[in-house]
């Protein structure tokens, strides 16, 4: 058994020696280097692309919208985003044309001799401006999606409540800042187009490329190159990039590579949706919340892309982990003139959970209750009904997480003592501690997995080795190690016999995208089903009962032992045996997309987080000192990998809450380089204590649930609540930089 064992990363050696080839390390004969000609304004009409008459463009491949042989559309959910601007510009930097040359130097030289002429129009930009317009003239905005969730009777709840509490919350853009920038290479071989690159979802890229080139999907082969971090940033965007390299490749007939530099990557690729949440709660004297009315706005950027599903997940996590009898949520994904915001670890949940987990501390603060007590009074339990009417039946562990957290962090004592600490002039720093309790719904929302119909396969080779054939990508989280652990444990064979190569669409079935904390839980289940099927094929082959023990097949009552390799040789008859299975969607998971009623997620993972901070009273710098977390994830297949996700996600979330600022200035991201967009360094991180709890999920492989996004959900509100504890001020926006604290202190007349 390899489950629950700290198996080393199977591809670790290549990664520590620099041997692993990322896409920027690929070279091909006659390869051209591609660059993008971009729109100079955030909104306007494209009037012309002017090529300098004095520059020799004869060696430069040029592609504009009129060169597109297929459709000028990047298909994601709706077909509203063009591959290249034809007439209308919707964001600054939108691709207008593509060029490619023999060297990057030549390509840059050519780029300097191309001018884009436009007739500028007035854009709408920034969450504050969107909210202002929403309040004054909501009909003037463009809505990509507007779902509502209704439960009980909110007005009745407000009537019965002892108190009404209201607050507004804002969150900003967040850049993924994967260390490896976006990159893609497309070449042609035997009449087919091969796109290889840094990506999460090969089966998103394949149809996107085919549509733009005007060829059959089967004639496009997408291969994942080793991917240097993604976090959602390589879910939707690579479809556009691959379409670009493919167009240049189609026109030039040569391999074309495009590697974004960091400034281009931050400026023009997706970010986390900025958000606005207005909460109004009806609360009983003792702290029970009996009604919640919420308005949610997400800044979706210029095109629909993934915003409807990001917003859905946001809305479905808006009540956080609380059992509230009367709920009304109206959610809005609104168009603006910035690059389309997209997938990012947590996918809408970190925004709405920041709002609700801050709001519950606001309620506690105003009603003079403890953050712990108010949570205890409202937590969901097995049997509770969520806002969509979903009844929670298994693996509900938030109560356990919270109690364990209080214990390991010594929260109650610290909270009371920091509340009473002297605010006198002599002390330079004030301490604070804050908590948050969160969940994350694992796998696609609602009927998503039913529509996906994911298929995965295993291939038993005559030499007894097994290949796992899935479209799911390893971008650091460890798919290539965890899946062999699952298969070797299901079959009781040595893990050395099993491998899980990076996906290539000509070899692997479509097991769906590597997103939504779904890979281990959903695709792991499919692969487990393949292993069951292999066992029954062995039984058919040997015409007797079969089980496998320590690499030996044990056949029939007289327990005949055959080494697995021998058995493989016998059943395969020198031809690889391919076993494919489809995800068996739970029949009791019913979802109504129109009314947002039913089972939103088959199961949830849970987390309780405490952050202890020091705030400098003079500079307002916030230093996180301790980060305590308790996460319940069903089963940790590989505990050190689980810990890697939880700790890494926590620090990314720490950056989100405290330092990662991305402001718009004249339509541009002001922080568009690593000198200005700041992420946590080794010196910025607190001491971390992380505990994993396991309440197995009946349908997960060995009980496992999704965990990759969960750690992004609770750290930011816990920081905000710690600042409330330290300074007694409610700061309802992130990131909480010193400038933000200064602004709030001034607004309250405290300085």
């Amino acid at each position, binding site marked *: 058994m390899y489950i629950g064992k700290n198996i080393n*990363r199977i591809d670790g050696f290549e990664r520590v*020696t620099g041997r692993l080839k990322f896409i920027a390390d690929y070279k091909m004969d006659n390869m051209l280097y591609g660059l993008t000609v971009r729109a100079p304004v955030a909104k306007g009409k494209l009037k012309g692309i002017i090529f300098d008459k004095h520059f020799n463009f004869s060696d430069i491949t040029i592609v504009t919208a009129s060169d597109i042989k297929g459709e000028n559309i990047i298909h994601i959910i709706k077909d509203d985003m063009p591959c290249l601007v034809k007439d209308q510009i919707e964001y600054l930097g939108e691709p207008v044309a593509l060029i490619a040359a023999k060297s990057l130097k030549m390509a840059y030289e050519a780029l300097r001799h191309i001018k884009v002429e436009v007739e500028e129009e007035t854009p709408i930009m920034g969450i504050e401006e969107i909210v202002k317009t929403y309040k004054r003239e909501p009909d003037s905005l463009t809505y990509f999606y507007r779902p509502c969730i209704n439960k009980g009777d909110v007005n009745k709840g407000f009537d019965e409540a002892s108190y009404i509490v209201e607050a507004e919350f804002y969150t900003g853009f967040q850049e993924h*800042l994967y260390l490896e920038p976006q990159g893609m290479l497309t070449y042609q071989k035997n009449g087919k187009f091969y796109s290889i690159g840094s990506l999460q979802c090969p089966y998103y890229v394949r149809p996107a490329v085919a549509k733009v080139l005007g060829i059959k999907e089967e004639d496009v082969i997408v291969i994942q190159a080793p991917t240097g971090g993604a976090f959602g940033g390589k879910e939707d965007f690579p479809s556009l990039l691959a379409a670009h390299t493919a167009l240049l490749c189609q026109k030039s007939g040569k391999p074309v590579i495009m590697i974004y530099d*960091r400034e281009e990557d931050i400026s023009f690729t997706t970010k986390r949706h900025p958000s606005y949440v207005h909460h109004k709660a009806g609360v009983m004297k003792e702290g029970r919340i009996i009604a919640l009315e919420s308005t949610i706005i997400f800044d979706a950027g210029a095109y629909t892309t993934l915003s409807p599903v990001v917003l859905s997940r946001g809305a479905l996590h808006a009540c956080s982990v609380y059992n509230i009898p009367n709920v009304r949520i109206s959610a809005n994904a609104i168009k603006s003139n910035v690059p389309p915001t997209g997938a990012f670890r947590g996918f809408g949940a970190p925004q709405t959970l920041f709002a609700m987990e801050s709001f519950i501390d606001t309620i506690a603060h105003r009603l003079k209750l403890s953050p712990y007590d108010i949570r205890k009074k409202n937590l969901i339990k097995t049997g509770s009904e969520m806002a969509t009417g979903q009844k929670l039946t298994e693996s509900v562990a938030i109560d356990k997480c919270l109690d364990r957290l209080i214990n390991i962090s010594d929260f109650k004592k610290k909270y009371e003592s920091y509340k009473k600490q002297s605010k006198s002039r002599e002390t330079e720093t004030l301490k604070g501690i804050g908590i948050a309790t969160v969940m994350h719904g694992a796998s696609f929302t609602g009927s998503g997995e039913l529509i996906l119909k994911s298929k995965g396969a295993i291939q038993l080779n005559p030499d007894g080795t097994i290949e796992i054939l899935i479209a799911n990508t390893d*971008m*650091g989280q460890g798919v290539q190690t965890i899946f062999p652990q699952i298969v070797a444990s299901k079959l009781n064979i040595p893990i050395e016999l099993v491998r899980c190569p990076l996906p290539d669409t000509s070899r692997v079935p479509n097991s769906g995208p590597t997103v939504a904390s779904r890979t281990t839980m959903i695709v792991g289940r499919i692969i487990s089903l393949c292993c069951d099927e292999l066992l029954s094929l062995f039984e058919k082959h040997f015409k007797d009962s079969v089980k496998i023990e320590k690499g030996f097949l044990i056949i029939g009552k007289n327990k005949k032992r055959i080494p697995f390799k021998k058995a493989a040789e016998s059943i395969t008859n020198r031809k690889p045996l391919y076993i494919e299975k489809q995800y068996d969607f739970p029949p009791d998971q019913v979802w109504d997309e129109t009314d947002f009623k039913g089972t939103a997620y088959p199961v949830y993972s849970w987390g309780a987080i405490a952050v202890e901070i020091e705030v400098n009273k003079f500079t307002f710098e916030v230093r996180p000192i301790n980060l305590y977390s308790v996460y319940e994830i069903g089963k940790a297949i590989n505990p050190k990998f689980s810990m*890697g996700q939880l700790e890494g996600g926590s620090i990314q979330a720490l950056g989100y809450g405290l330092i990662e600022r991305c402001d718009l200035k004249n339509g541009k991201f002001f922080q568009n380089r690593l000198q200005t967009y700041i992420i946590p360094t080794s010196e910025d991180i607190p001491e971390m204590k992380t505990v994993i709890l396991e309440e197995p999920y009946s349908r997960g492989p060995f009980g496992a649930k999704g965990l990759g996004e969960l750690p992004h959900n609770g750290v930011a509100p816990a920081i905000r609540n710690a600042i409330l504890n330290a300074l007694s001020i409610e700061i309802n926006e992130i990131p909480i930089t010193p400038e933000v604290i200064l602004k709030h202190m001034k607004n309250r007349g405290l300085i």
Partner: protein
Amino acid sequence: MIKRKWNINGKIQNIQFEEDQRLLDVLRDVLDLTGTKEGCGEGECGTCSVIINGELKLACLQLAAVLPDGTDILTIEGVEKTSLGKRIQRSFIETNAVQCGFCTPGMIIASFYLLSNHKKPDRKTIKRALSGNLCRCTGYNSIFEAIELASGRK
């Protein structure tokens, strides 16, 4: 064209490159030593860390032409030939200090430089020594543990 004779990873090599090329380009494009990565191109992320004449440097900020004949350059490709390098690499795998692996070569170079100068650094020293190398996957803890393991502290 510039001509130089450098000692690269313990091997004397004659090389030619353009006068405006960065050391990073010379390593990756001329010498095909692609283990050194480009993450930002402006000296912030540390993925292009190399050791030049015993000092930790960033290859993206280093103009190649100013390095004279006889310059000693150690890249990730040379680290694994040393026993300290091997020990660090094993420790990185053991503590799961490697996720996506893109920061890893630079991180290992910075760790190698640290442990070449401090036998058993404490946590504070480790944090300081790695502060020029960004990692977005791990949250750094496992990297600290890897260095402690390699130094025999753990």
